[in-house]
């Protein structure tokens, strides 16, 4: 460190504070991880897996919206492509192990992401959103018409199989820890990206794109890489989700799904790492609880009201507001 040269007391305290906040963050992640390890003994594991899959999906989406400022309205296409590819391979080739199928599903959505990205990143703002939406609709209609997806009915009875040919994923607990591992991997990738020099360039692009260009950065290249990684992680979430539920359905490709991930990210907090995770957990639990309660037929209305309240009053989302509150009162 450069403490020897600029060792003023003020500088030192700033560094110490930074270290302390890093340590606190690490402790927070650690606490979350321990809770996640114990959770399946308290809460129903399949429900937790659903939250983790959507959390990974939202984290992937937030990489674009929160750190590059690109609102993609077509992320459902990547989720579905991962899911359908994995599902089709697993139900067609009985010898295939789940990790290979997931790899194939993720690769498929990565390629699709490259295609989408090359077309879409040429435009900004609403035009970018519209292009991704249009492309995702094309993908949706392709899946409606294709025979390998089962059309409206979807793919059913996909075997969970044995991980690496050894661990039987039919057991809910084994499946849960596998999903948790995949989620931690995805989260770590995004965490590493955001805190790397590459991530800082992304933030610079978000803040002021012409300035980043004038500094000599190839902005389109940076955006494209971020888009492809986001698509890959969304595909990974879709692949894992397919194995958890043993089905792949058209719902994943529908634009409602693209909208739902926007809601999750906004509710949790755009541009924070934990925001999408908390948002996904919140939305999925709310849907789950409301679906089984007497208020069942009000799910859509309640979600809509929450969305409006978030946009009007809590624009930073759950985690964002919490951070603000924390900074104001404890620092």
């Amino acid at each position, binding site marked *: 460190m450069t403490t020897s040269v600029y060792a003023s007391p003020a500088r030192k305290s700033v560094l110490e504070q930074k270290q302390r906040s890093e340590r606190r963050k690490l402790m927070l992640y650690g606490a979350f991880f321990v809770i996640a390890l114990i959770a399946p003994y308290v809460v*129903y594991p399949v*429900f937790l897996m659903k939250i983790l899959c959507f959390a990974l999906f939202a984290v992937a989406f937030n990489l674009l919206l929160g750190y590059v400022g690109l609102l993609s309205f077509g992320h459902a296409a990547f989720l579905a492509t991962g899911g359908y590819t994995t599902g089709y391979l697993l139900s067609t080739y009985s010898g295939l192990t789940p990790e290979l199928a997931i790899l194939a599903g993720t690769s498929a959505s990565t390629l699709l992401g490259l295609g989408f990205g090359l077309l879409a990143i040429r435009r900004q703002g609403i035009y970018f959103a519209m292009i991704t939406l249009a492309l995702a609709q094309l993908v949706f209609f392709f899946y409606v*018409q294709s025979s390998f997806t089962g059309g409206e*009915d979807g793919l059913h009875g996909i075997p969970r199989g044995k991980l690496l040919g050894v661990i039987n994923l039919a057991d809910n607990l084994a499946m849960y820890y596998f999903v948790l591992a995949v989620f931690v991997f995805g989260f770590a990738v995004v965490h590493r990206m955001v805190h790397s020099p590459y991530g800082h360039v992304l933030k610079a692009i978000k803040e002021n794109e012409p300035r980043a260009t004038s500094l000599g950065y190839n902005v389109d290249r940076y955006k494209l890489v971020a888009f492809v990684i986001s698509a890959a992680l969304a595909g990974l979430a879709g692949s894992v989700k397919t194995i958890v539920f043993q089905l792949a359905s058209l719902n994943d490709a529908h634009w409602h799904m693209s909208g739902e991930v926007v809601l999750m990210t906004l509710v949790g907090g755009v541009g924070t790492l934990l925001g999408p995770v908390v948002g996904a957990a919140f939305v999925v639990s709310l849907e789950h609880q409301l*679906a089984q309660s007497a208020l069942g037929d009000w*799910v859509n209305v309640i979600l809509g009201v929450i969305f409006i309240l978030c946009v009007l009053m809590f624009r930073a989302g759950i985690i964002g507001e919490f951070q603000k509150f924390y900074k104001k009162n404890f620092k």
Partner: protein
Amino acid sequence: MKIMKKLLSAAIASTIIATTAQAAISDNEIRIGYLADMSGTYRDLAGPNGLVALQMAVEDVGGQVNGANIRVVSADDRNSPDVASSTVRQWVENDGVDMVAGLVASSVTIAATRILEQSNRLGIVSGSAASSITNEHCTPNHIHYVYDTYPLANGTAQAVVQEGGDSWFILTADYAFGHALEGDVEKVVTANGGTVVQKVRHPFPTGDFSSFILQAQSSGAKVVALANAGSDTTNAITTAGEFGLTQSGQTLAALLLFLTDVHALGVQAAQGIQLTTGWYWDMDDDARAWSDRFMQRTGVRPTMVHAGIYSSTVHYLNAVKEAGTDEAQAVRQQMMNTPINDMFAKGGYIREDGRMVHDMYLAQVKTPAESKDEWDLYKIVRTIPGDEAYRPLSESQCKLVNN
């Protein structure tokens, strides 16, 4: 041989009942899960009112069977197989649910029945249309009770051709469900001596049907058939009403249309449409009496799905009582052994593929002059005997049928 088998199983069953009367019903409670669309497109035809029908059935049986209480839980499937799959899994694994009722969207039904098969519980499907549910997707753990697309296409097409509608224009929703329906209709029309003049496919879903209806009018066909469902059908009918399709002499045949759809469209727009239904609230005294009770509770007339939920639940609970257990296979066998004679069906029976076979009805929507009140919507034109209406077992691809 068969009699011996039955006697033997009856003997075994009765000894089991005699020795373990209490333990025969799991947890000494019969748990029924009602899974349906409570907030989306299919809310009206099943939805919260289906739950009322289910509760009526439970009350009519007395709230308990052989001393075991009946508990009903319900959930919204949001027309999503994901939600259906996680809900049913949780019901089965955590809550000990014995039977799942309702089940509307076919993707939801297929997802739910796969889980019921894995865990050997019973599903009674009242809302779904797809005939594949008792064909390639059949399981020994579910029963398809109310209707399916086979009699809808078969019944309507055959009846309309026989009444002189021999040239057809088919408007099809461009996805697997529409294609299957279109294929079925075309087969029946040509087999009965009619011709299909033109087939047009519209994207799914479509809002504006003007160009398709104009094509239908200029095709010169006597019959315009709608091989689609839900909002596509009602949108097409509304447009056809605006263009005066039926007034200009063409017959409109809808293949999948519910009482609540017709009620929403109104007789002005829907008049003259021919359709096939599994049940109509005003078709006989039993049906009327039950639907009066239903209307007192809900304020609306029941659809065939509501009636089917009531009838199948009573049939299920009676079977649990007779079999003395809530084990899925024993109950299903008992349900198959007993014919269904109630407000829903006369002489109905359940086949080995899980299809409940009963008479279907060809109905025509009344004109505004004929309709006496807002729910007086259909006149029954003819009865289609169950054995003619449903797909014969000889054509079945179900794994439970030996062909």
